[in-house]
């Protein structure tokens, strides 16, 4: 077995190169996870040395694209944490229903499974026709996949169980058409979605929302970056809008926490005041 050849200093070097050449700033990502992903790519692509890996990244823009695709974590599933979705159904959607038009942002949506989950909930609440769901991610490849709404059929049993646990009463299979090993989700869902690339580190707010979901993204960021992203969300949320985080994430230590109130037991907070 070899030691991890990418030590801390080398990682810093690599990140500086990338920032200078491509403008992507990974310097405030949590290093342990980033290092693990970079080492994985380094091994996968069989580089003989770190120097050659670094050189390739600096000189080959196509390879940098692969780098972004591979080092970001794109694991997601539909209706993950059913109790969270149950809370959305019972507590949040009835409030959103009072708005003439609903705008929702899924920040860091990966291949889009959560966006489709939300669209199903909205459809069942009779709100989808007046909703727009924005899905964004730093990785253009996953955004391409999200637009298609095609997921492996092998996942459907698990998603169907999640759906029932989240309070769903229909037959989950009515939402997709299975074709060999793929399940294509209904175009009535896709029709209310807008997908685009967006980098939480460097890009600005692009709209005002009543609900922002950013689940299992902030765990990859260091505190200062988390704090900047919270500011971005705060700026992008209407007053009395909601912010939903992953089951192990919290607003507790953030600079905006005093203006937000947690709703129930799930990781959902409501904005109670605008910034003073």
């Amino acid at each position, binding site marked *: *077995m070899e030691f991890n050849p990418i030590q801390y200093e080398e990682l810093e070097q690599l990140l500086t190169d990338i920032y200078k050449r491509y403008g992507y700033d990974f310097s405030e990502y949590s290093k*342990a996870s980033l290092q*693990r992903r970079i080492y994985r790519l380094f091994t996968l692509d069989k580089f003989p040395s770190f120097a050659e890996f670094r050189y390739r990244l600096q000189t080959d823009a196509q390879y940098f694209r692969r780098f972004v695709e591979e080092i970001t974590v794109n694991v997601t599933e539909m209706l993950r944490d059913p109790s969270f979705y149950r809370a959305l159904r019972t507590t949040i959607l009835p409030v959103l229903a009072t708005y003439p038009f609903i705008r929702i942002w899924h920040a860091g949506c990966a291949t889009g499974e959560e966006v489709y989950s939300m669209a199903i909930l909205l459809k069942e609440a009779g709100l989808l026709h007046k909703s727009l769901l924005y899905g964004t991610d730093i990785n253009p490849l996953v955004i391409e996949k999200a637009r298609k709404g095609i997921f492996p059929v092998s996942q459907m049993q698990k998603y169907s169980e999640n759906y029932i646990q989240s309070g769903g009463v229909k037959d989950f299979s009515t939402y997709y058409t299975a074709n060999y090993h793929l399940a294509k989700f209904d175009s009535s869902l896709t029709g209310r979605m807008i997908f685009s690339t967006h980098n939480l580190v460097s890009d600005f707010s692009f709209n005002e929302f009543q609900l922002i979901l950013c689940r299992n993204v902030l765990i990859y960021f260091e505190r200062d970056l988390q704090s900047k992203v919270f500011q971005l969300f705060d700026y992008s949320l209407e007053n009395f809008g909601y912010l939903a985080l992953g089951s192990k994430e919290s607003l507790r230590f953030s600079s905006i926490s005093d203006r937000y109130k947690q709703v129930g037991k799930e990781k959902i907070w409501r904005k109670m005041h605008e910034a003073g």
Partner: protein
Amino acid sequence: MKPDKLLLIGGSAGSLQVMLSLLTAVGTDLPIPVLVILHRNSAFDSALEELFFTKTALVTKEVEEKEVPAAGTVYLCPPDYHVLVESDRSFSLDYSERVHFSRPSIDVTFKSAADVYGAGTIAVLLSGGNADGADGLAYVKECGGVTIVQDPGSAEVPYMPQQAISRMQPDHILHADDLPIYIRGLATYK
């Protein structure tokens, strides 16, 4: 003060009882933090924490992201997340792909902890039915840490310790009953 040692205990099927007796017998004044990587079913997560809490005398809590571990405290990996260790000793959570069908994975945490704690890593691998942990244990040893494997003969499910033994040479192969005294010695040795 940042801890300079970390005790890692990894296990799967058949390891819970061993973990509980080990943590009960090891004493209440353990001078280093403990991180438990147990393959678990997320449906029973809160029950597990309660069990550790009532059965052992040590303070037990689930890992929170960015938390710096304290001596004498037992940290449990949350279900469905990998736990990594940052260079400032704080824990971070990771929701990337499963390793050996497992999240948390013992390999992932063992390797990440050894990168930071080096020779201060004490890694224990217990009973289990899959190959997770063997690679991680080999890595801990490469980094100068101490590696301990439960004697497969005393393990309810011997596959996991057996995999480790065939993959690398652990520093100690111990019967479940002998684990506490050894581990206490390693943890308190300056």
